[in-house]
């Protein structure tokens, strides 16, 4: 607070210094008018110049991007092919959407997503070597949603936190609690537990070998 007041006092004193001793200047109306006009003109000029500078900059940047884009894009005829087929499909879906009774948010999202996808197709990179572009059979929204729903059930029932075990465990539990206890299922079935069986075989061979060495 004290500093501020000091500074203010200084400024004030400076101003007073300059204007205190001398008589005020005589400035005619025309002079001040021209001066005002000049300053305005200057301001406008600078603004215009800045605008132009910005414009230049933008134009240059745009050109640069276009250059880069040209380098990245696929040959024109291939693009044409993709564009023609992708433009057909969004149009079809829009027609269908109009025929529907309900126009919920879902349909709008559908259209947006399809447009995005066709847009993405246009920005693909050129890779080295020969390759051909083929339009894939487009999976409809319904099958994506169906897959997502099936994944939901799968994750809720079998996903993390679901505390599941294997069929082998279940069968061996049944075996242990049953009346007739028999061999574990993984040894009875041929195509189960191949690794364990291989391990058991190796151990057996090693043991036999040891026995032979120790005997002779």
């Amino acid at each position, binding site marked *: 607070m004290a500093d501020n007041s000091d500074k203010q006092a200084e400024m004030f004193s400076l101003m007073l210094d300059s204007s205190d001793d001398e008589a005020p200047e005589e400035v005619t109306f025309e002079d001040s008018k021209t001066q005002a006009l000049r300053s305005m003109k200057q301001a406008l000029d600078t603004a215009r110049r800045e605008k132009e500078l910005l414009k230049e900059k933008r134009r240059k940047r745009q050109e640069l991007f276009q250059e880069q884009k040209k380098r990245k894009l696929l040959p024109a005829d291939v693009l044409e092919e993709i564009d023609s087929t992708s433009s057909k499909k969004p149009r079809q879906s829009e027609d269908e959407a109009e025929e529907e009774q309900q126009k919920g948010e879902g349909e709008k999202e559908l259209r947006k997503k399809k447009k995005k996808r066709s847009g993405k197709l246009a920005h693909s990179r050129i890779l080295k070597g020969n390759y051909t572009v083929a339009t894939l059979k487009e999976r409809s929204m319904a099958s994506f949603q169906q897959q997502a729903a099936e994944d939901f059930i799968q994750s*809720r029932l079998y996903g993390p936190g*679901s*505390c599941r075990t294997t069929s082998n465990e279940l069968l061996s*539990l049944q075996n242990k609690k049953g009346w007739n206890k028999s061999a574990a299922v993984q040894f009875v079935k*041929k195509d*189960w537990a191949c690794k364990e069986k291989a391990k058991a075989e190796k151990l057996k061979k090693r043991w036999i070998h040891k026995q032979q060495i120790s005997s002779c």
Partner: protein
Amino acid sequence: MMMLEKKNRKNQFRFKVLNVVPDVFQPVDLVAEKFIDCKGNRSKMGEFKVHRVRFFDYMPSAIRAMAFNRRSERLAVARADGAVEIFNFSDNYFQEKVIPGQDSRAVEALCWVDQRLFSAGLNGEITEYDLENLRPRCTMAAFGGPIWTISSNNRGTMLALGCEDGTVKMFEVLEERVQFQRNFDRQKGRIISLSWHPSGTLIAAGMMDMIRVFDAETGHATHRLLVERGVGASKSREVVVWSVAFLSDHTIVSGDSAGKVQIWDGVTGTLLRTHLVTKWDVLALSVSQDQSSLVAGTSEGTVIQFQLISSTVGQQDKEWVRTRTFKNHSHDVRALAHTETAVVSGGMDTQLVVRPLLDKVEKNTQESSLRKIVFPHRSLVCCAKKAGLLLFQFPEHLELWRLGESEGHGKPGDSLTVKTKPEKLIQLKRKGEDHICCSALSPCGGWMAYSTVSSVRLYRLQYNNNNIGITKVSRLPKDLCSVHQLCFSSDSSRLFASSSHSSVIVVALNQQECTYLHTLKPKSSSRQPVHLLFASEDGKWLATANTDCEIHIYNLDKLKLHCTVPVYSSYPTAIAIHPLTSNLVVVHADQQIFEYSLEQKEYTEWSRKLQKLGLHSLWLERDTPVTHITFNPRNPAHIILHDMFMFCIIDQSLPLPEAKTLLYNQMTLRSVPEPERIRHSHAFKICKNFQHLLCVRLLEDHSLVVVERPLLDIMSQLPAPVRQKKFAT
């Protein structure tokens, strides 16, 4: 032969015979089995070489949903592969109809509206089924994303759907189709389950973390019941309300993924009672008709019953008390139905279990026994008797196998050495998205056919030394489009296909092509499909049986109807015509056996004798139907039939068993000395050595083919069950 090959080069596939031994437990063995007949001699009459086949990798599909129709006593069951099966609960739980599945159809819920069956699935469509032609009648997209649940109101006028996008959609049930009416207020989560209040004015919807109650007239949500999440680690996951039930006293019962069954007051929206029944999910709920009992199915495989009883005798205030726990499944129970007398459950272990409630039925009777339906009630295996080939029908492909050979003889019970191993000759994938409905192989092995709901395909098979060629017959008669059953004549010159309205299409086969001959029509106006076809050995007769219990016999020489067997109230499960006597033998779902003479058009003497005496009680108590009847060329008095657990040779020359005699007497006969055997033996010779039987056939060289499907094989391929820690294991 060379000329033909050149012409048909386009359609011909060449396969080299593959040497595969896929049998799991032991190599296919030929076992010498002996049956003791009254003379006690080890004659060729009773001795059979048995091909024990275990390389049919049939895998049933998990049960996903079910719906019980009280008026017609039919249970509709939807499987994970999209197939829908109808079981008749008033006729020994016989699997009456099967509508094959489809690749993209993932059925999540089933619903009966009068006699019409609707399903809704994750593909976002409602499907109505044509139960007379065994295929989908029409499908309609609901435009709400995957549909999780479908339910109709009591009057049968409206269908409510719960969709992925959070809307409950109302569809009006019209005569020929369903029509969209309106959406309810859209919610922020998916609608997993729905239940109508019996009055039809309110709907309770189970969602994520909450239950919403809607006013059915305005479509606005009135109450929001918040469901608590699980404890511990599951606190961070949303709780899914898998199932809700709205009772007439405005009580809402919910089952959720935190393992709780909760009772709510639907008027005030408050929680009345919580029952923690399992550590895993409660996946299904079902309420009885009188609303005094409800059952909940869990991921553990248990089914828990709650009953509305008063805690003290004589008091008026009743509450829901947990009473019984049934553990009849090893895997998750995903579908439940509460009938008047029983609880029906099904889930990931693919078995349909009917558990009668002992307070509704008499104890220790046939009615009160637990029923497990594991395999289909029809034959999935075709056998070419002359060529020694087997055709296995899977939902998505067919496999053709040649049986192995063995030398030598042995004592009964021995395993014979296998000289040539069985080989898989062809694996044929079906075209399109529809699953295979039926298939057939001609007795000579030269023709193979299968049908789906949309098409029929016929193939010609050629065998040159070690190569087998398969050619598709391209131009089929137009009438052969939607067929329920296929059968070749014994000389492989004709193909019979059952079509709509119980009619049968007859098609002639020559060399590489087939031409339409005739359509056989019954006199009755039945619209039901024909599910059994049998062509006699001499090529003169064709027997058909339909799901209206009608059996028609056609004379193939004149190509017209010969006679209709008097209708018996139970479904025919197997029919056959004796090659010599031309007697028709029929076995029904209630295990009754009839023999009808086609020449005289009346029941035979033996059949009347059997009916008068009555079948043995143990025979009638069997819970799986007889799916095939065949005859023994070396002994005209033999009838060979089989069900899932036994095969039986009925010797018509022997006396019938009395009610008090031992039915399964093979073991006793073996232990008793020869002169005594005559006293003890009777007509029914039953062998229970092989289980579970999918097919028993007699080849031309008098060897038996027995196709078994061990349950252990199926169990080992099921998805993961829950981990349960048991004491001392």
